[in-house]
């Protein structure tokens, strides 16, 4: 771990601004991505995981979003203050991104071959023929059979899983050092989900790239992630190696997510799934208590007075919870925790 991290985000904060006021979409988000690892962002819709990813590539719309504060250091350079020209070279060149919905994420009127090739031509400055050749290689790489013929296919002629493979091929066509995958399996059938995850995992080993994998599915995290970052209400609430976090969950929200997971096995399929009571707090004002306190099964009076900061909960494990030890102790009996402990 002597090499500097590929991506280091420090104190990233940003608000959504509207006529009725502003929302704290991201508050003081700091994390890093090592070379070659898969870091997973987990949390429910609206927790800020996609916004974090989009602000790395500066893809958020300019209207309705405040200029972010903090630093986004990619290979030492701050992307937050980089010029639009520099960003254009990084997007698709050094950082690739894939999106949730492969149905709508392609231009419907161009062949997939053209759409991969234009990315290559844009960043490599090669001829159209060479770019197409690269596109073919990429389709082979993502294990699409009969790649030469598929180059001429339009997006609507491919299945969802096939389209997501093409999406991955397109994002990786210029050998990016980082792949950001925003819910890449959410829109797919369960069987296809597993294939796509395995593909991403294989490719990062083959190509030696880092991956940020955004998901709301802890099952996905457990399958491929090296480290996990749990987000809630625009903040990081727990972060660490997958083994540490799953073996010793140290935040009430992580505990809630784990408890809510359905478990395999004949004796479990008729039991009611656990849920987290209450709703996400309003984000239109500064919060000076634990953001999760109102819904937390472990909350005490001190949780509601003062915002807990991320504190070490293990060797490479941090949690923003004053009751971390109590949570970990209470979760020791959970099936998933027992499996990882």
């Amino acid at each position: 771990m002597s090499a500097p991290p590929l991506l280091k985000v420090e104190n990233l904060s940003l608000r959504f601004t509207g006529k009725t006021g502003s929302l704290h979409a991201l508050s003081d988000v700091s994390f890093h991505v090592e070379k070659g690892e898969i870091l997973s962002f987990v949390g429910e819709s609206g927790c800020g995981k996609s916004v974090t990813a989009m602000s790395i590539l500066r893809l958020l719309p300019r209207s309705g979003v405040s200029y972010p504060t903090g630093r986004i250091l990619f290979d030492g350079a701050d992307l937050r203050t980089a010029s639009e020209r520099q960003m254009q070279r990084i997007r698709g060149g050094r950082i690739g991104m894939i999106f949730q919905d492969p149905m709508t994420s392609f231009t419907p009127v161009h062949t997939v071959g053209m759409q991969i090739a234009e990315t290559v031509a844009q960043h490599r400055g090669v001829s159209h023929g060479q770019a197409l050749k690269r596109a073919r290689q990429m389709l082979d790489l993502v294990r699409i059979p009969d790649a030469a013929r598929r180059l001429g296919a339009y997006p609507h002629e491919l299945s969802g899983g096939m389209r997501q493979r093409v999406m991955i091929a397109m994002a990786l066509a210029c050998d990016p050092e980082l792949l950001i995958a925003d819910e890449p399996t959410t829109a797919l059938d369960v069987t296809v989900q597993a294939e796509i995850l395995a593909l991403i995992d294989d490719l990062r080993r083959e190509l030696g790239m880092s991956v940020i994998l955004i998901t709301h599915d802890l099952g996905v995290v457990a399958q491929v992630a090296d480290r996990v970052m749990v987000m809630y209400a625009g903040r990081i609430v727990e972060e660490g190696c997958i083994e540490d976090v799953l073996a010793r969950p140290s935040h009430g929200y992580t505990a809630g997510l784990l408890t809510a997971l359905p478990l395999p096995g004949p004796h479990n399929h008729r039991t009611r799934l656990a849920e987290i009571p209450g709703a996400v707090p309003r984000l239109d004002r500064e919060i000076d208590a634990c953001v999760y306190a109102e819904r937390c099964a472990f909350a005490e009076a001190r949780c509601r007075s003062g915002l807990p900061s991320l504190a070490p909960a293990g060797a490479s494990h941090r949690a923003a919870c004053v009751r971390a030890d109590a949570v970990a102790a209470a979760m020791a009996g959970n099936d998933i925790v027992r499996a990882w402990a």
Partner: protein
Amino acid sequence: MILYVVGRLLAAVPTLLIVAIFIFGLVHIAPGDPAILIAGDNANPEQVDKIRERLHLDRSLPVQFGIWFGNAVTGDLGTSVYSGRPVTELIAQRVEPTFLLALYTIVLTVIIAVPLGTIAAWKANGWLDRAIMGFSVAGFSVPVFATSYLLIYVFAVELRWFPVQGYKALSKGPVETLVSLTLPSIALALVFAALIARVTRAAVLDVIHENFVRTLKAKGMGTRRILVTHVLKTAGVPIVTVIGIGLAALIGGVVVTESVFNIPGIGRLTVDAIVRRDYPVVQGIILFFSLTLIAVNLVVDLSYALFDPRVRG
């Protein structure tokens, strides 16, 4: 793709038949006996009978239609009551200026309107958008003859860059022709540009917030390439439809402009024929317009397949 083309071509046949029946019926719906009308006030009954026989008006309606339709298919639309010359010849003489004026106008319109509409959508609700849409409202509100006279005053009378009026035939050199059609084309293009800029803006706005635009940004494509190669092509179908409607309308409806600029086109022929109650010519012109409209629609339909692979089926 071939199936699609053949399908479109076949679909045009019933339209053509209905148009033919309608046009044939026109003479029979019009008040008065066409034979008497053609013979004039001083004709005796034998002369009227002769005309009736010559025009097959003594036969039953279906037989008449058959004869008329058969002639029309072979390009014989009858002769003008006023000048006695074949209708096809009269129309053919007037086609060149009208077609060229329509084409020139459409080219100018597209060059002006499509970029402006795209920019307006890209900068939606900004000052540039407001300025372009304001210009578009103005362009649509001012009548063509008013802009025509203003253009004539500035560019023909004062600056002397273009002739005040008249049309130079293509046979005398294409540059001369273009020069003589420039002012009328600009006058017409201002109106159509207003319309097409609006349609382009709406079509592009529909597409610009779709997910694929975000994908393009995420893979590092520049704004111009995103807008031109991806967004405009995806938004192409409604834009081309309106351009097609505009072209058809231009071929059929530039009477005022042709009058102001003294261009001997179809519009002028139409007005003259109506004023003289020259029914064979009116019939011929309507058939000609219908054919043009069907042809333009066919081309537009076929162009859909060019824009959107999903249409090819």
